[in-house]
């Protein structure tokens, strides 16, 4: 405990010295957070200074080992750092799918050579990654994916199409599920890593109902993927044809992450926020009150869930419940915000509405219960694995 207190004091002082005031303001849009990569640009000097200070300290990925670019913090120390950053509203210094998704997969399944190269690149924000999972015909039923990599000896030739590839148009590399054995459904998929600049890769942004385009369609047309990037750096994570194990692990990890943040802006009462513009209609007030009950209760659930994860308690399928409940709650939150906002919340691009922020955020939340496993898939998993209902 004394050590942790010392660490907290030290961390607080370090943040005070290194986190610029501009980096302590709420995140308004995507560009407010640095995503890294070969073509990355800093929005301003403060963002650059904050990123570089964290990178040099290992704080872009504080819990990763030092040899892979992290700070080697223990879970308790990492929690202190999170708390201290939250205390001053510090923005994350670097966002990336490399940190959230590929990194954890490499830490668990990667070779030493892969870890040395790719984890360090991620930690230093040098390579921006995207994820190639879903296909037009393979959404909830992901394992039916058809993108095929033909074995050509020292390389694969990949053909097919991915969809919902987040920021594919901005990414440098992709971690991609590719079928390498057509005869074997589950054990015929390989988790491949390759450069988006490879010949035959094209991307096309998808315009969403929110008016934004965070996702792309990604096409592979005779893309040659070398099987190795150097000594002990194979192009695939895990064994060839065993990529489904890696994908499943990552899906679980993703649900855990979504569930940990699922409640959205949970510190404030939604009813208190909504009533700032004047008196609420009584029935809306009642809906808001019932929502606040659900939201505060879910905050306790999140705390309990994380406490139990820390000590290995709780049902292994519990992240599915958290993902389900958290995303449904967030959709309701934005429905109520729209109702409370009235016609002002309908404005699509006015300055007063900050470019239609309310309406666009509302529409964006509709994907919460689709991406990373739909609510219906989550309910099916709960029924099968937790309630042990038959034939699910």
């Amino acid at each position, binding site marked *: 405990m004394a050590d942790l207190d010392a660490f907290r004091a030290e961390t607080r002082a370090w943040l005070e010295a290194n986190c610029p005031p501009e980096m302590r303001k709420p995140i308004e849009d995507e560009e407010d957070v640095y995503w890294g990569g070969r073509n990355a640009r800093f929005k301003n000097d403060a963002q650059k200074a904050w990123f570089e200070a964290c990178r040099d300290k290992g704080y872009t990925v504080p819990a990763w080992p030092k040899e892979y670019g992290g700070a080697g913090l223990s879970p308790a120390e990492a929690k202190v750092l999170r708390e201290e950053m939250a205390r001053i509203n510090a923005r994350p210094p670097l966002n990336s799918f490399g940190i959230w998704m590929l990194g954890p997969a490499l830490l668990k399944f990667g070779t030493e050579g892969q870890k040395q190269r790719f984890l360090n690149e991620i930690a230093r924000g040098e390579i921006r990654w995207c994820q190639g999972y879903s296909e037009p015909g393979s959404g909830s039923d992901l394992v039916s994916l058809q993108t095929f990599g033909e074995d050509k000896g020292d390389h694969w030739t990949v053909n097919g199409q991915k969809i919902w590839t987040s920021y594919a148009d901005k990414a440098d590399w992709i971690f991609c599920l590719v079928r390498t054995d057509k005869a074997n459904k589950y054990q015929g998929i390989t988790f491949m890593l390759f450069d988006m600049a490879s010949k035959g890769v094209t991307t096309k942004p998808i315009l969403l109902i929110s008016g934004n385009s965070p996702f792309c369609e990604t096409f592979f047309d005779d893309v040659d993927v070398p099987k190795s990037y150097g000594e002990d750096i194979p192009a695939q994570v895990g064994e060839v044809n065993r990529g489904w194990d890696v994908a499943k692990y990552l899906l679980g990890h993703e649900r855990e992450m979504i569930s940990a943040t699922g409640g959205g802006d949970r510190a404030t*009462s939604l*009813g*208190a926020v*909504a*009533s700032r513009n004047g008196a*609420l209609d009584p029935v809306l*007030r*009642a809906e*808001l*009150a*019932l929502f*606040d*009950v*659900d939201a*505060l*209760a*879910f905050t*306790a*659930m999140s*705390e*309990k*869930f994380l*406490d*139990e994860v*820390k*000590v290995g*308690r709780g049902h292994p399928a519990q992240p599915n*419940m958290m993902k*389900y*409940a958290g995303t449904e709650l967030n959709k309701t939150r934005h429905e109520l915000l729209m109702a409370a906002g009235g016609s002002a919340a309908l404005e699509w691009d006015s300055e007063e509405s900050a470019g239609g922020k309310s309406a666009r955020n509302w529409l964006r939340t509709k994907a919460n219960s689709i991406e990373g496993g739909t609510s*219906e898939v*989550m*309910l*099916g998993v*709960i*029924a*099968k694995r*937790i*309630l*042990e*209902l*038959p*034939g*699910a």
Partner: protein
Amino acid sequence: MPLYHDDDQAMLAETASQFMAEEGAIAKQLRHWRDLQNKDGTKGCKDGFGHDLWKQMAEMGFTGLLVPEDDGGLGMGNVEAGIVLEEIGRNLTPSPFLTSSVMGATALAHGSDDLKGRWLPGLISGDSVFAVAIDEGPKHRPERVATRAEKSGNGFRLTGRKDFVVHGASADMIVVSARTSGADDDEDGVTLFAVPRDAAGLGHNSVRLVDSSMASHVTLDGVELDGDAVIGEVDGGRSVLNRVLDAGRVGAAAEGVGVARGSMDMTVDYLKQRKQFGKLIGEFQALQHRAAHLYSEVEIARAVTIKAQQLLDAGAENASLMASVAKAKVGKAAGLAVKEGVQMHGGIGMTDEYDIGLYMKRDRALAEFLGDVYYHADRVARLSGY
């Protein structure tokens, strides 16, 4: 403090679970007392619970669980009381634990040494039962206190009427909120009294409720009490009343979690046994998804109940807010659990012979006790500034 039970609490949970499943089982307690044939041809026990079980609970140490060790109890907190209450809920065990060991004990903790000396030993030994008289009317409105307590000699004279006094006619002592000054809706001017069973002018109209528990419409017709019957400060009873309410609400939430889990487990088991159309009905996705949604709601309700218990024990600033959140959330989740329970059981769920309907009845009574979903959602809104 992590949001799960520590080793000692897990041990208590195991003990309570075993005890209540054996001694407090539905057939042995709830149905037994409900179906008791009286000599006069009527049916049902006048208390609605068994005094033998209450004595057994005393032997287990449960009755004095919240009483400080210096006063002869176990000195435990609301988390531990909640553990016992969850098992009471799961088995629908009729007992005066919530009104006596939680609410009565919480009130007496603010009483004089004389009051403690008079009432606590009987509670701890399982010889005494307490009730709490707060409601005045069919809905829970503790902010309004119309019952009057006027100065009379060295003491007070109480006049008024109280409703939904659970176990009122069985109680050796009733904690009564009354107004010693001010208008009905004033925050100040409320005083709590420990009214003994034999007080002159104390009347009961005892009624059986839907869940077979007994509650009284209590009349206070010029009940004369000594000054030493006052719990806490004269005119300053509101803060004690609020503590009694918080403890009672969090306790009722814990019991509700037990009702919800008992009902859900019974229903999920049924889905795995009942066949229609040549299939187990648990294979149907329409039922699977509803059962999974129910699981999610009950898990969340349980988490916030434990959170509220911990906050109450820690004396945290937001404990009262979270007590309301817990009571409301459990009201929603347990209500869903019993409704889905009866529906998913189909026709058999409508029969008296099958236990699932008993869960629905108990949930209905618990939902009203100390404020329903709507009362507490409104309170959450008020405490949040809207």
